[in-house]
């Protein structure tokens, strides 16, 4: 049978998928099932959990960690790790806030400078890993300690640097109006669907079916409904009228979707993304195929730290300040956890941008749901740690299963 016109049917798609799951390529399945299970458990144990108010809360709470996780995926794809990403975000956030406070920089200039600081830090770590060959674990562990020191020095005696800039604060605290939210939903969703449709039609023309149309339809129908439901819930009233009225999509959703789109495009559609997967899968093969492995490695750290800088801005926005512990504590572990729970492999070569969002939602749901049920922080850490270990085990076992 000519493989280009390999006939697809619902049945063959299903058997292929089951075979893939069996061979260890489980993708987003655990995260989606976990999210469903957690959703159901918390829904029945807490009246507040699945409310309009809590959904918005969940998103704004988890946004910075999700953004760090998105950046980490670039590094994890190579089988490397960036333990310093949390404090990179702290240092970048502090740079931005200090520039706004002490030097009266406009917010966008301060933000761009903080991005430059972030990418420079990433560049330094990337060079140490790629050129000198120091294991990334050691490079970034040293950076973790050093950046924590830098952050302490920047915060100085006062400890916490307050932020008043209303544009930055708005990102995590303000919302689109309900009408704007619906307009955004319709525009974004149709753009996404039209792009997908164009791909299907082009594939047909070239006689290459990348995916069965029915499957595409089903997948996108589910996505459309879920996104619609989320928009509807976010448009619900979560203030206390008449004193205060809070409704609509948090602005940070736009930031998250924008980054998700940009990251996915880079990973799936460009040469650079393809090379990230190749180097993560077999660095020697990539080198022999003429890929500049040193460049790819360095750039992965640069991008990771760039994302961390954006997360730093979100941290500053969310708490109106930067403290010496911003980006510390559980931040990095939650971000790594989000990526791994979402389906990104710690061994490199496997992972997608959406893993950060799905896994980030799982981590945030555990955190948020258990908090609502009144469990202590100790129990929450214990459970989150267990879930991370579980997904890392699934990752390791599936890798074994895939080995021929």
């Amino acid at each position, binding site marked *: 049978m000519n493989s280009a016109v*390999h006939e697809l049917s619902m049945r063959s798609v299903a058997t292929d998928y089951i075979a893939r799951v069996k061979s260890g390529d489980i993708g987003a399945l655990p995260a989606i099932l976990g999210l469903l299970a957690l959703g159901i458990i918390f829904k029945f144990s807490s009246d507040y959990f699945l409310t309009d108010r809590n959904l918005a809360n969940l998103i704004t709470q988890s946004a910075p960690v999700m953004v760090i996780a998105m950046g980490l995926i670039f590094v994890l794809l190579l089988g490397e790790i960036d333990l310093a990403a949390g404090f990179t975000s702290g240092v970048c956030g502090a740079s931005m806030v200090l520039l706004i406070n002490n030097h009266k920089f406009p917010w966008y200039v301060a933000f761009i400078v903080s991005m430059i600081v972030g990418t420079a830090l990433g560049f330094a770590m990337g060079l140490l890993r790629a050129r000198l060959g120091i294991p990334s674990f050691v490079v970034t562990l040293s950076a973790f300690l050093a950046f924590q020191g830098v952050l302490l020095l920047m915060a100085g005696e006062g400890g916490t640097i307050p932020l008043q800039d209303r544009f930055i604060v708005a990102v995590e605290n303000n919302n689109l109006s309900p009408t704007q939210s619906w307009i955004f939903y319709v525009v974004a969703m149709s753009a996404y669907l039209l792009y997908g449709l164009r791909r299907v039609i082009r594939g047909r023309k070239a006689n290459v079916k990348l995916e069965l149309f029915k499957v595409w339809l089903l997948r996108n129908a589910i996505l459309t409904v879920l996104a619609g439901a989320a928009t509807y819930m976010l448009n619900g009233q979560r203030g206390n009228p008449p004193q205060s009225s809070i409704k609509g999509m948090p602005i940070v959703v736009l930031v998250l979707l924008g980054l998700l789109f940009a990251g996915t495009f880079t990973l799936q559609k*460009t*040469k650079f993304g393809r090379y990230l997967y190749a180097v993560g899968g077999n660095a020697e*093969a990539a080198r022999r195929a003429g890929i500049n492995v040193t460049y790819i490695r360095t750039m992965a750290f640069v991008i990771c730290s760039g994302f961390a800088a954006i997360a730093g801005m979100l941290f500053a926005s969310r708490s109106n300040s930067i403290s010496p512990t911003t980006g510390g504590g559980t931040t990095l572990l939650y971000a790594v956890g989000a990526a791994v729970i979402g389906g990104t492999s710690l061994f490199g070569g496997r992972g997608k941008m959406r893993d950060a969002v799905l896994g980030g939602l799982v981590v945030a749901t555990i955190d948020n749901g258990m908090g609502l049920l009144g469990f202590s922080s100790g129990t929450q850490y214990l459970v989150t740690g267990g879930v991370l270990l579980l997904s890392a085990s699934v990752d390791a076992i599936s890798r074994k299963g895939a080995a021929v």
Partner: protein
Amino acid sequence: MSDPILSLRGINKSFGPVHVLKDVDFDAYAGKVTALVGDNGAGKSTLIKCIAGIYVAESGEITFEGKKVEIENPRDATALGIEVVYQDLALCDNLDIVQNMFLGREERTGIVLNEPSMETLAAKTLDGLSVRTVKSIRQVVSSLSGGQRQTVAIARAVLWNSKLVILDEPTAALGVAQTEQVLKLVRRLADNGLAVILISHNLNDVFAVADYIAPLYLGTMTTQVQTKDVSASQVVELITTGKSAGVGASK
């Protein structure tokens, strides 16, 4: 007999005090399989690395398609149309067949990868080699058998209108049925007009597909013979002692 597409004359290569290749002459012909045989340490790998541009010979001449050429790095070899399939195949397990075949040479429209075009070309190449063993060319390589992986690596080498393909022990890790498949594929490459250099330890394989046999003995090419003129025991003698009664005298 037509002129060889690749012709080496008086190739020398040493590593420090070790003289690995001594005045080696070697020819490969379009449409023919030339087997390079020899014991461990005879210099087979060094010789192909000189052709592939990984090592540069200290002295000697390389003629490709009738013109004298200098092959100083792998890119020079690729530019001439010389492709090597190494024993470890150099495939990325996590990428699919098409992605592996185009690795490092992706087709793009603007900055976006052109998947349909790459997929069509990959399918055409596999069809040209009459490969029917893979179910879908979008399968990831980790799900393929050893023989299928070898097939993908070979298909990648011929995707670029290459003229000379060097295969390093392509059947070493394969079972009986898969060895058979790969040997058929090797034969088909030559029948499609490519020059093939096959490195092998296995004389059964050599006698099954090769038109010429070039035995290396301690860094010297004993004599390049036509497969039909020699017996297996004569080739074994050439490999182990460097000479054999009844075969053209060694130099």
